[in-house]
């Protein structure tokens, strides 16, 4: 018995988990069964630590057609169409082998989309790395970016947006989160279920090999250490050409009505596909191991059952439709084989050579998998520890940073030249963003905008995180990420539809790390409730830690919105000279977590900005209404780098300068560079000024005209708050000014990333 005990531990199962397995089976599992349990009960597949907390998230909405639990969330958008979208992480494989890790990350999320019956139309990638000057970071960035592009470009799905953030906490554990979006006719919605005993299980696509054995349990569910390089065989290898064929064949099968259910093979391979589809339909599946097409001849049964070979699909097919299914697979050059049959007994059985090798209730592997009750405990040291000697509350009117002698123009250039804020062109030029001929806006100028099937309507998508804020306060970081992402979509005039997310955290067995997880979920839920948006799916990635510590708690948010008329979308670039520039929303003090703090150093007693969820929701509603009324010539979200960077971007992207006067309090850095949420910069025709005022007021939002568009320079005068009249009358009220030619801004912004990565040419 000692040998068996050792085996379950070697597979990553605890003694408690072995007991739970025995309780479900009513006997001890054999080796094959143990291997199947070990991958299905891994954190990656079972969500055993997170499941009960995820149940608290708001997931319902009138247009939600499919929510969490399916391969991707699906929301109806009218005219018989629906949009499928999901975000998923592929962190650990990318750390071990950046090109293949990132490539198969794209492949996996695309399969989740077309498994639902949707044609993938867009990819967004959210990447987090360590310091850009570190040679290892540079190698990871190059590999991951090439991997995302290498896969997405080949399958012909445009990569239209994303995020790239550098922070020391990601040095040994980069994050590769990929979001994919697809379009489908609602009537083609396909479930990953195996109904109808007697139906056949058809495996099509690549043959099964030894790659990715135990990826779910070995890579995704353990903390990184020096032995990680030895885990390289656990990384899957991607074949985007095979994926492209899979997409076309699968959509053809669905459109012809030939499949009863469809499931992609990802983590835990065949074991996961058959147990999940059977459990969803309340059926069982018997797998004939000998029928599985293999890449290698001498594979052990457990290897075949848990291999994570890429580019494979599993279809549930009625016997009379089998020939038609095989014909389509053959036309696309895809090997296909009947590997099993749906049964009524609720069991996943594995047979070979007439012998039964395994028999496990499908539910025991999936819906009835073990659920852990993890301990969450707030860190002992709180984020707002007062400085030694300080008494009482922190004065949040000042940011505590040295202001005297600050040259706001120099700070602005430093921020535009910051690796986290500069132009992403070095990355985005490596991604095909226009394949599909529906891309209206992509890349680095705000949210991505795609036409729907060459028509008038459009989809808007963005992905954001606020990990630096979450490092101080996980609730705020998560809620701010939702707020920013929704704002980025609403600022185009689109109606946000729903939220997907990638939750990236450390070891769930560490009570403080788990507290960060539960706090983040609370922030995510609170924000989505306040905005009336359903969470339609997502992904949890634990064990993002190295011997140096855990990553910042990172809630990556993805939002999709709907535009009734793409031609009327609002863009972030200024549109015309002489338009008035207005700030809508109220700033709050607190620079902790901001890019300014990263550049200028963080004062120990500095606070975080406030987030008013009701105000934020009002802003989202106003943006849609003002866009509908045609009031907005441009609209730009205020986030990274604050107001000054927002104005500078609108200016650079249009080639139009601006002359502004910004009221400042005791801390000009807060007014210019603070990243407090709930604010946008808009421009409007001067003739619309009164309507604009009234419209904002009707939504209870403060609106302040701060200047006008024009010229070839960006001028921001700092005016002591309360002063009125022309600049020369304010006298000593003029603290200082930004006064820079647009070309200087552009130079700083364009050279930021290549310089940081040592890729200047």
């Amino acid at each position, binding site marked *: 018995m000692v040998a068996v005990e050792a085996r379950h531990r070697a597979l990553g199962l605890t003694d408690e988990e072995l007991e739970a397995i025995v309780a479900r089976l009513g006997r001890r599992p054999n080796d094959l069964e143990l291997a199947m349990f070990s991958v299905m009960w891994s954190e990656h597949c079972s969500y055993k630590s997170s499941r009960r907390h995820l149940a608290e998230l708001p997931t319902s909405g009138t247009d939600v057609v499919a929510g969490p639990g399916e391969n991707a969330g699906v929301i109806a958008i009218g005219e018989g169409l629906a949009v499928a979208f999901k975000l998923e992480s592929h962190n650990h494989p990318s750390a071990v082998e950046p090109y293949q890790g990132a490539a198969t990350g794209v492949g996996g999320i695309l399969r989740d989309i077309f498994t639902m019956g949707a044609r993938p139309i867009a990819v967004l990638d959210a990447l987090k790395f360590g310091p850009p000057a570190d040679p290892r970071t540079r190698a990871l960035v190059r590999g991951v970016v090439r991997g995302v592009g290498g896969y997405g*470009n080949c399958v*012909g799905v445009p990569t239209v947006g994303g995020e790239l953030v550098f922070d020391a906490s990601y040095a040994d554990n980069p994050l590769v989160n990929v979001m994919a979006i697809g379009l489908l006719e609602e009537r083609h919605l396909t479930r990953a279920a195996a109904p109808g005993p007697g139906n056949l299980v058809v495996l099509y696509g690549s043959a099964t090999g030894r790659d990715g054995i135990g990826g779910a349990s070995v890579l995704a569910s353990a903390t990184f250490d020096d032995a990680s390089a030895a885990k390289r065989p656990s990384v899957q290898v991607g074949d985007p*050409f095979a994926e492209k064929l899979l997409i076309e064949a699968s959509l053809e099968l669905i459109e012809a009505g030939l499949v009863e259910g469809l499931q992609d093979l990802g983590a835990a391979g065949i074991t996961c596909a058959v147990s999940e589809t059977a459990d969803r339909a309340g059926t069982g599946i018997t797998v004939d191991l000998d029928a599985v097409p293999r890449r290698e001849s001498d594979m052990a049964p457990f290897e075949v059952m848990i291999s994570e070979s890429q580019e494979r699909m599993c279809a549930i097919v009625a016997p009379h439709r089998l020939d038609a299914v095989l014909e389509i697979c053959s036309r696309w050059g895809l090997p296909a084989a009947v590997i099993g049959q749906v049964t009524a007994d609720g069991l996943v059985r594995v047979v070979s050579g007439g012998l039964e090798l395994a028999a496990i209730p499908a539910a025991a592997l999936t819906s009835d998998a073990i659920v852990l009750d993890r301990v969450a405990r707030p860190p002992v040291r709180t984020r707002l520890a007062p400085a030694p000697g300080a008494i009482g509350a922190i004065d949040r009117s000042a940011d505590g940073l040295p202001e005297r002698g600050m040259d706001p123009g120099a700070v602005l250039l430093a921020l535009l030249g910051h690796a986290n804020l500069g132009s992403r062109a070095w990355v985005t*030029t490596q991604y*095909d963003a*226009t*394949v599909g001929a529906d*891309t209206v806006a992509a890349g680095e100028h705000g949210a991505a905008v795609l*036409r729907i099937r060459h028509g008038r309507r459009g989809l808007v998508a963005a992905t954001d995180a606020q990990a630096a804020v979450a490092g101080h306060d996980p609730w705020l970081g998560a809620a701010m990420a939702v707020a920013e992402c929704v704002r980025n979509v609403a600022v185009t005039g689109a109606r946000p539809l729903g939220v997907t997310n990638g939750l990236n955290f450390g070891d769930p067995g560490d009570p403080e790390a788990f507290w960060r997880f539960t706090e983040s979920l609370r922030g995510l839920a609170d924000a989505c409730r306040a905005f009336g948006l359903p969470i339609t799916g997502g992904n949890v990635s634990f064990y993002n830690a190295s011997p140096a510590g855990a990553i910042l708690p990172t809630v990556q948010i993805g939002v999709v919105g709907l535009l009734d008329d793409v031609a009327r979308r609002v863009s972030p670039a200024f549109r015309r000279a002489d338009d008035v520039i207005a700030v809508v929303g109220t700033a709050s003090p607190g620079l902790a977590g901001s890019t300014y703090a990263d550049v200028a150093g963080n004062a120990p007693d500095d606070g975080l900005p406030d987030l008013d969820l009701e105000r934020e929701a009002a802003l989202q509603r106003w943006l849609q209404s003002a866009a509908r009324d045609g009031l907005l010539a441009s609209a730009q979200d205020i986030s990274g780098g604050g107001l000054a960077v927002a104005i500078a971007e609108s200016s650079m992207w249009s080639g139009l300068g601006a002359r502004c006067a910004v009221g400042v309090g005791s801390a000009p850095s807060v007014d210019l560079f603070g990243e407090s949420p709930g604010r946008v910069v808009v421009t409007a025709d001067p003739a619309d000024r009164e309507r604009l005022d009234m419209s904002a007021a009707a939504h209870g939002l403060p609106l302040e005209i701060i200047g006008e568009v024009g010229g070839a320079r960006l001028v921001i005068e700092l005016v002591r708050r309360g002063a009125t009249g022309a600049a020369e009358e304010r006298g000593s009220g003029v603290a200082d000014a930004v006064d820079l030619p647009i070309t200087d801004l552009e130079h700083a912004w364009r050279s930021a990333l290549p310089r940081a990565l040592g890729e200047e040419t």
Partner: protein
Amino acid sequence: MRVGVVVFPGSNCDRDTLHAATLAGAEAVPLWHERPDLDGADVVVLPGGFAYGDYLRAGVLARFSPIMAAVREHASAGGLVLGICNGFQVLAEAGLVPGALRRNATLRFEHRWVRLTVERTDSPFTRAIPPDHRLRLPIAHGEGSYYLPHDELDVLEARGGVLFRYAAPEGNPNGSARDIAGVVDVGGRVCGLMPHPERASEALLGSDDGMLVLRSIVESVAIAGRAAVVA
């Protein structure tokens, strides 16, 4: 007027090209690579993508597809053939247009909007383009650096074989010899073009200059059709 768009396994601009050809006034039909038959198409387009995954070398496997025999026959009979991006690579590998497409000088995949000068507007692929009009089109390729030995480049230029060159302000994105973005064969009926005209089909998408190329082809076939009737 019928445009046939070849679908190789791994083609990924076939749907975009079918759509743009329809916008240009053609009847557009997909042509499956396994059938050596052009379905009565007046013009054949080899679209962009990664035919056969571009494994081994871009375009090198696709040229052995059964349909390529029909394409070759169509070309030798004076039919119009346009290869876009991967289609250009296939035509070059098949020897239907001169030159080879090597890896970009940056050794990276490059997606960006570029400007093209049109070297001559008396070709079936450029006749609808106003004189001196520079085209704004996107590129999206890893292997698009046009190569020919110097003396052959001289010959190509002397016979008017260069139709499009990369131009300022964006300039040459991939290190192509003499900024060449598009060429025609000796007969002037087979054209290879690296940028994507089918993606620049409406101002909303950033440019509608691509329609000038597609409309040129539609016009050319219409004029040839009238000439044939008169003859």
